[in-house]
């Protein structure tokens, strides 16, 4: 049964709800649907699941883009109603006939809805019944097969030399089976005769099949026996195991024999002061510079009458001109397809992941279907405008990315603000960590680095060099230590000496590597950082989707608390190497929902800037 069906405008006013289904919805499923699905450009997907304490709903929706209406149906997830899609489209059709922008209440629609619902439910009942009629016929045929197989099996078992009292039972069972087999055999014959010529063929086939089945049955029986044996041995083994002490083994990456420790950490710390240290001051970090946006002179090139458009894929020039001047009636999916496909290809050439481009195009199609084409515009320009809108919406952060504000808030509470840098191998975590430290320092924030990359050779030294150049303290414990504990101690040290921010560097790891992801999850859970920053390089292609989704999934699965910490922000690196193939930013933001907080655009301390949404969108659609 439906829980509720709503009709509301895109501006937010509810026009009609079904008064018969008076159940108040638990939680706020509609608002959540809008916030996390429709506004996130996922309106192309089929349905949305919402969980609230005490309820699990599924929501389905449809748009009427011309009138700006949204139709949403809510029902309990366990019911899996089949008629919802059909009902929604019928409701859409009927309602649009009585819709008037000036009218606010539509109480007469109650009656229409009641009828539509009955119709839809009746249609589904018919569908269900026709499916059930088909089933008994199939079942009886199957039974016949099995019984026959059983009958043959019974015979064979009799002939086998098996000791024990099983024989008698088998004989009896065999007899029974034989009888049943025969009677069912009759059934099969009658069915077969109904099915004309297939009948005889089936009988023969079933005998052969029966023979085959018998051997299968034998194998299954043996397997079952074996399984029992292994189960017994397992339990015995399990009892033996606790006796062994669990010793921690060193992580061995390949089959090389374990080597003696190659720890070249300089034991003497104080010796570094002899070196002449020049504090790094390379001027203003690019984070604080305003970006110069080039003027929009290249826009509006798609307007009719203003020169040719080489991208146009219309059949004839004259007919397309005529259509655009007259203003086509309603946009159909088939009209949108060529324009959307062209846009999708363009996005993919800009290094957007294929999956993301696909989903985006579906979402834009859902929002444009049925809309009336304004006069003097071509379909491609409408689609482009809609896509631009959608891209701006996705890339605009949905929460504040003002880190300095967060740092000040943490300072008031006398706690250090902890940032953890995670990512796969070689994306630039350590380098960008130093850039962020430099930027924070320029804003009079005291920073401390924590070297929790205890695996890669030279990682600690690298951070130490940065710390020396920037003249900020670094907390390190050398190599081969547990990163989670190092981080914990670093935070305690920062609280002690009053540092405002702790930047935690971690080792790079592949998203599929289970033990490493577990270690990372442990670090995040143990220390509960204020910001989990995923460092991703702009050069990545389709792998971005996989990386981010797996990182998020592992952080959620392996977390011990009810509210798992996920990735809070993205740091995009190597931005200077990609020219205009800026799609990775879009893929990462779409799949994780986290905003891009920093962009690394070079290899010196000042090369860190903010993401300029408008520039990126323009570059993507150029």
């Amino acid at each position: 049964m439906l829980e509720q069906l709503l009709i509301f405008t895109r501006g937010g006013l509810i026009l009609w709800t079904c008064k018969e289904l008076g159940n108040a919805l638990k939680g706020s499923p509609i608002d959540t649907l809008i916030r996390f699905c429709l506004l996130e450009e996922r309106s192309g997907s089929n349905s949305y699941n919402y969980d609230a304490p005490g309820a699990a709903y599924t929501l389905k929706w449809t748009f009427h883009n011309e009138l700006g209406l949204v139709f949403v149906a809510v029902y309990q997830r366990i019911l899996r109603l089949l008629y919802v899609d059909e009902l929604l489209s019928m409701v859409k059709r009927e309602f649009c006939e009585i819709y008037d922008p000036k009218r606010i209440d539509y109480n007469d629609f109650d009656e229409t809805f009641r009828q539509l619902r009955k119709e839809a439910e009746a249609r589904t009942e018919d569908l269900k019944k026709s499916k059930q009629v088909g089933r008994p016929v199939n079942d009886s045929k199957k039974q016949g097969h099995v019984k026959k197989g059983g009958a043959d099996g019974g015979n064979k078992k009799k002939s086998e030399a098996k000791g024990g009292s099983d024989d008698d039972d088998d004989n009896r069972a065999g007899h029974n089976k034989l009888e049943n087999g025969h009677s069912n055999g009759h059934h099969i014959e009658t069915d077969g005769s109904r099915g004309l010529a297939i009948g005889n063929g089936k009988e023969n086939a079933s005998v052969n099949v029966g023979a085959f089945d018998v051997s299968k049955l034998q194998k299954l029986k043996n397997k079952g026996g074996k399984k029992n044996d292994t189960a017994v041995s397992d339990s015995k083994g399990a009892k033996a195991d606790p006796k062994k002490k669990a010793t921690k083994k060193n992580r061995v990456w390949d089959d090389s024999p374990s080597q003696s420790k190659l720890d070249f950490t300089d034991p003497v710390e104080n010796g570094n002061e002899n070196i002449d240290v020049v504090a790094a001051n390379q001027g203003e970090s690019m984070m604080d510079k305003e970006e110069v946006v080039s003027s929009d002179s290249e826009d509006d090139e798609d307007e009719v009458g203003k020169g040719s458009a080489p991208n146009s894929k219309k059949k004839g020039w004259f007919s397309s001109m005529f259509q655009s001047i007259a203003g086509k009636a309603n946009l159909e999916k088939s009209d949108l397809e060529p324009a959307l496909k062209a846009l999708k290809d363009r996005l993919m050439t800009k290094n957007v992941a294929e999956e993301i481009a696909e989903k985006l195009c579906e979402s834009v199609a859902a929002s444009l279907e049925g809309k009336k084409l304004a006069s003097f515009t071509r379909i491609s320009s409408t689609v482009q405008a809609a896509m631009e809108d959608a891209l701006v919406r996705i890339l605009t952060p949905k929460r504040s990315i003002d880190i300095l504000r967060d740092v000040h808030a943490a300072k008031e509470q006398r706690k250090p603000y902890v940032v953890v840098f995670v990512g796969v191998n070689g994306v630039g975590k350590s380098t960008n960590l130093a850039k962020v430290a430099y930027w924070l320092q320029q804003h009079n924030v005291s920073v401390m680095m924590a070297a929790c990359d205890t695996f890669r050779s030279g990682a600690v030294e690298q951070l130490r060099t940065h710390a020396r150049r920037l003249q900020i303290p670094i907390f390190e414990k050398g190599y081969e230590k547990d990163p989670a504990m190092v981080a914990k101690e670093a935070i305690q040290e920062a609280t002690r000496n009053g540092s405002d921010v702790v930047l935690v560097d971690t080792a790079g790891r592949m998203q599929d590597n289970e033990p490493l992801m577990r270690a990372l999850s442990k670090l995040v859970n143990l220390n509960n950082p204020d910001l989990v920053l995923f460092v991703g390089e702009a050069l990545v292609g389709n792998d971005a989707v996989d990386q981010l989704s797996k990182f998020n999934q592992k952080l959620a699965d392996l977390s011990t608390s009810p509210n798992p910490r996920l990735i809070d922000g993205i740091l995009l690196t190597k931005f200077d190497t990609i020219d205009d193939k800026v799609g990775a930013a879009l893929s990462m933001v779409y799949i994780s929902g986290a905003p891009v907080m920093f962009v690394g655009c070079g290899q010196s301390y000042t090369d860190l800037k903010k993401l300029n949404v408008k520039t990126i969108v323009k570059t993507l659609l150029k």
Partner: protein
Amino acid sequence: AVRLLRRPKSNTIVLSGLSGSGKTILFYQLRDGSSHQGTVTSMEPNEGTFILHSEAGKERKVKPVHIVDVPGHPRLLPKLDEFLPEAAGIVFVVDALEFLPNLRGVSEYLYDILTKASVVKKKVPVLICCNKTEKVTAHTKDFICKQLEKEIDKLRTSRSAVSDADVANDHTLGTPGKTFSFSQCTNKVSVGEASGLTSKIADVEQFIRDNVKP
């Protein structure tokens, strides 16, 4: 294009504020005098040019007002920039009930509006409207005003790092050195109360009447 020396005074009032503060309800109260069957999170702005419902049927001639309800969802923030330049007044709606949990978001939004170049240059008056006052646990407008001033003061220091190269978006707010208060703004910032669900919108209507002169 030849332009008149004095542009005709705009009659646009912008309703802004965080998602869930009650802007759409207010919009419909101003237009129809009722909140109808309720609202959901807006995905698009609500626009309309009309005579305020409470003034319909009055003897004297009233000028129709162009009211725009801009969605508060952060993803739709760029929409605000479309309407602010032509605003004769801004009503900033604040949820007085769920005020403290959203304090940071509210103050950042307000800060962004107060430092937009168009708002500063044209000295657009702002009404901070504390909504949902019919609820027992709603905060008073004085409390809200003080809290906002404190938060914006903090924001000034953390956002002061913007360069002075391009003045398009940010201005420093208030007098540097002194604790921020709304009286320091060059444009008039006032505080009022309202209750969208029970049609108590007198403060808002007065603000509109003051700023959209016939």
